[in-house]
């Protein structure tokens, strides 16, 4: 690249190079530290592939006879948990989204408060929410619905607050000028603008919730996870395989469905 032998191609300033070097060093140090100190039993590691292969062999062929009725019922329960949890989560999230959007709520205190609620909801995983609600409601799908809902608040609330902040102020100003009250300005000026994002976010979250609600049963919060846990504890591997296939099928179907609907919405 260089025109004469004495020139050097310099891609980065010294500062950039230092930054890159530090990041690289940090990465390598972290990896070396993690590998050298992690407690992994060498015997486990050496026969892991063999054990894994053994497990897969025992799962094959999946016994589809197990599907009806118990797995089917649990799958439906999972579907209900995901859908109701999403609906409840959206209902709970909307007030916080309105409070967090700085163009709609002018109080910095309320903005911050709403952000705090949204961040807390997102920082706690739905499985941990499930543990909490199992402690509150006892084992069962009610705990699952609330776990899904509380985890969804942060996600839906954050994305909706962003959508609200992107809404054009012009139409709302025009409605203000006609003498419309606050709820009417929201209904006729803001809602039509954020409606496409709203359905997109709702569908997106439902898709995620369907995946997450499949594992809630592992901590007793209802759904197909309960059946999976039982089957694993009783070493019924063909049954486990059936359940996994059922989950896989539902998750893939939901993803296709959501992609289709979202494409039509836009």
């Amino acid at each position: 690249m260089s025109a004469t032998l004495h020139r050097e191609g310099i891609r980065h300033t010294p500062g950039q190079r230092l930054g890159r070097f530090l990041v690289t060093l940090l990465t390598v140090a972290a990896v070396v530290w993690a590998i050298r100190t992690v407690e992994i039993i060498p015997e486990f590691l050496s026969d892991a592939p063999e054990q894994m292969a053994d497990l897969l062999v025992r799962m094959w062929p999946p016994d589809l006879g197990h599907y009806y009725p118990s797995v089917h019922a649990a799958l439906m329960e999972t579907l209900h948990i995901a859908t109701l949890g999403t609906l409840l989560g959206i209902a709970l999230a909307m007030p916080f989204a309105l409070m967090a959007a700085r163009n709609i709520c002018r109080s910095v205190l309320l903005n911050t408060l709403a952000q705090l609620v949204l961040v807390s909801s997102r920082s706690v995983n739905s499985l941990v929410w499930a543990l909490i609600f199992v402690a509150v409601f006892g084992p069962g799908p009610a705990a699952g619905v609330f776990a899904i809902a509380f985890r969804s608040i942060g996600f839906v609330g954050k994305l909706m607050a962003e959508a609200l902040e992107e809404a054009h102020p012009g139409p709302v100003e025009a409605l203000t000028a006609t003498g419309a009250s606050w709820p009417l300005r929201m209904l006729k000026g803001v809602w039509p603008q954020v409606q496409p994002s709203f359905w997109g976010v709702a569908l997106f979250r439902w898709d995620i919730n369907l995946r997450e609600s499949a594992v809630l049963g592992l901590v007793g919060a209802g759904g197909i996870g309960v059946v999976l846990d039982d089957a694993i504890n009783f070493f019924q591997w063909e049954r486990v395989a059936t359940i996994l296939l059922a989950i896989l099928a539902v998750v893939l179907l939901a993803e296709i469905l959501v992609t289709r609907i979202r494409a039509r919405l836009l």
Partner: protein
Amino acid sequence: MRRAFAPNWPARIGLFVLAAYAVWATSQLGITGERLATGLGEGGRFLARMWPPDFSRWELLLEGLVESMQIAVISTVLGIILSLPLGLMAARNLSPAWLSAPTRGFIAVCRSLHYVIVAILFVKAIGFGALAGVAALTVASLGFVAKLFAEAIEEISMKQVEAVRASGAGPAAVLLYGVLPQVASRFIGFSLYQLDSNLRNSTLVGIVGAGGIGGTLFAAFKRFDYDFVAAILLAIIALIFVAEIVAGRIRAALQ
């Protein structure tokens, strides 16, 4: 008389069906007002028992957090190393269909199974401990990172690749000079994102016995040690917060 509004029947029916479904599904799950009312009372007692958080067993807490971080780092690195060839194999513009189609299928399966389910399977197959967590999160990382890698590769400009090829470069040189420069910065972005999400997830896989702070958390829940639970939750949230800030700094440094 002229019509003021075009009636939107699909939307009306859709909303009605959704509302009817919500009522029906609620009854199916046996969720009643009575149950929620007792739950609220329990919730109050539960919160009261969480306060104040008990940090006296901080050594146990720290041990769990450190193990979670180790799991996150190792699984991210493994995931990325395995994702590089997988992403390339799955990219439809650089790989033949007989290779890209099955690779895409494999990636889709990795992505569709929740990491906690994968973790259980690994725990049953290779035993309790961090190894199962590493394996599970590596699989999860594969599903996400390889897919994003493949998409990034599919979006590159083939003109640049052709130009490098036209200079007589071999396949490795084409990858190094024609493909990598176009995708490198996005790859680093995806990798950082995955490290962040693996760190979150590594605090959980312990619930099914795959190592990390999750095991400590689950044990505390089972013993009704709710003040210790509060301490663990606060520690996890703090860890995730710090990780997010560090990731943001690194991103800024690399720009």
